[in-house]
């Protein structure tokens, strides 16, 4: 217990003495984590948008005007037995017209003179996510088109896929940039700690000679690295949060409004904690690199 207190004191003394070097360490980690954090926020939000789209994604099957009740029943039955279909709703010609009118609010006059209702009845299909690949959808659409009484099939999957693959690319990019910056942070921390170790070389030598264990000698430096890393990551989170708030304010939005689909959020607590831990780990590892080489029995 006593020893733990001494180790903590030593670590704090080290940090105080590290001065500009220590601040540079913390700053580098903060900058790296801000960049990684930006990628994280963007990919996580875009990912949520894609998930939302996939959730809401539907295939619309337009029916021929002359479809008979038996044909309709058969089409419904055939479609419902398909594994790709999660849910199905039927919209009659009349309902479709009403909802179209609602959308045209104030400009109903446009519809005058059309005489007979021009809008077809349709089936809206919710599709299981596993079947939302372009290939599966093309096959499914082909199957639907061949059904008796089906006029046309409408789906707009391609751009959802494009966004999804953009998210994948961003994630990959973020990962590689993150790794590169993580390495840079590691080297900077390791260098700062190495200077701290050199500055205390005499003291370490004396500690060794009066019977300090390696763990005891190493621990303050390890802690120093972890604190630097943690502070860097914490600073990054603060900066990111500030920037996030400022962006929302600039765009006159409240959280959750971006894209209008319940996303546009900051990093959730789990990710924020993960970033802090990652910062501390980078610091600890950088410290170990420096101290490990220095010590002998």
């Amino acid at each position, binding site marked *: 217990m006593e020893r733990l207190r*001494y180790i903590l004191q030593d670590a704090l003394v080290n940090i105080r003495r590290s001065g500009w070097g220590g601040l540079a360490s913390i700053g580098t980690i903060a900058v790296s984590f801000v960049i990684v954090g930006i990628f994280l926020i963007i990919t996580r939000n875009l990912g949520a948008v894609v998930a939302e789209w996939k959730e809401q994604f539907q295939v619309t099957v337009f029916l021929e005007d002359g479809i008979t009740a038996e044909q309709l029943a058969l089409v419904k039955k055939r479609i419902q037995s398909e594994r790709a279909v999660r849910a199905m709703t039927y919209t009659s010609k009349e309902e479709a017209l009403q909802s179209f009118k609602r959308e045209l609010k104030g400009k109903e006059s446009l519809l005058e003179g059309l005489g007979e209702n021009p809008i077809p009845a349709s089936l809206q299909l919710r599709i299981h996510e596993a079947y939302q690949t372009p290939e599966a959808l093309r096959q499914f659409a082909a199957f639907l088109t061949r059904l008796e009484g089906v006029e046309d099939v409408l789906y707009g999957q391609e751009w959802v896929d494009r966004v999804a693959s953009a998210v994948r690319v961003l994630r990959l990019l973020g990962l590689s940039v993150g790794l590169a910056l993580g390495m840079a942070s590691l080297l900077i921390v390791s260098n700062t700690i190495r200077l701290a170790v050199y500055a205390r070389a*005499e003291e370490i030598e*004396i*500690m060794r*000679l*009066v*019977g300090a264990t390696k763990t005891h000698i190493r621990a303050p430096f390890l802690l120093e690295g972890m604190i630097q890393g943690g502070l860097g990551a914490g600073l990054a989170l603060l900066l990111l949060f500030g920037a996030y708030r400022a962006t929302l304010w600039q765009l006159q939005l409240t959280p959750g409004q971006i894209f209008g689909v319940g996303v546009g959020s900051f990093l959730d607590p789990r990710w924020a904690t993960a970033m802090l831990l990652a910062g501390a780990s980078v610091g600890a590892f950088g410290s170990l690199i420096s101290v490990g080489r220095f010590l002998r029995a």
Partner: protein
Amino acid sequence: MIQLFHVYKTYARDVEALVDINLHIQKGEFVFIAGPSGAGKTTLLRLIFRDELPTSGQILVNGRNVVKLPDRAIPHLRRSIGVIFQDFKLLRDRTIFDNLALVYRVLGIPSATGKRKVANLLKLVGLSHKVQMTPYRLSGGEQQRVAIARALMNDPLLLLADEPTGDLDADLSMDVMRLLGDINARGTTVVVATHDLDVVRELGRRTIVLKAGRLVEEHP
């Protein structure tokens, strides 16, 4: 307390620091290791607190074979030994108090106990009034006494002193020797390496003489 059996130490390029040393030091003894510089005195001391390994031979300290000691057991050995280094090894940018406190922090002694210990030892070496000074402001003799106090911080069974009278004039040398004698009188085994034959002669303690790494004389 200390037993050496056929101990050889050869550094790179066949520099023979110690050649076939056999030695037995009893618990509670006061022993001089005398000889000119380069005779192997410092090497001998460093072997005892396992700062170096012998090229061959066995060394027992307090019943333990330090040659076969695993790395993780070395700190434990060193905690039972006090060492006064030739160059003092004091931290120049710390106060005398901090220099001594370093030891109790390493040992994990609660700070209240540690502080009391520092105060007692500084009283013993007569430096209580300089506790907040840095070594810069102390004379050579005073620094030597700080080094002695630090070596006693862990209540060692064995005290090794490497040229404790190195740069001191005759009077101060005798002061330091008297202090080491007092420590020995309280039960600590004391081994002093020195080139100062006047001091050795005057004290008439058991003396082992090294020359070019060989044990050439032993008296009485």
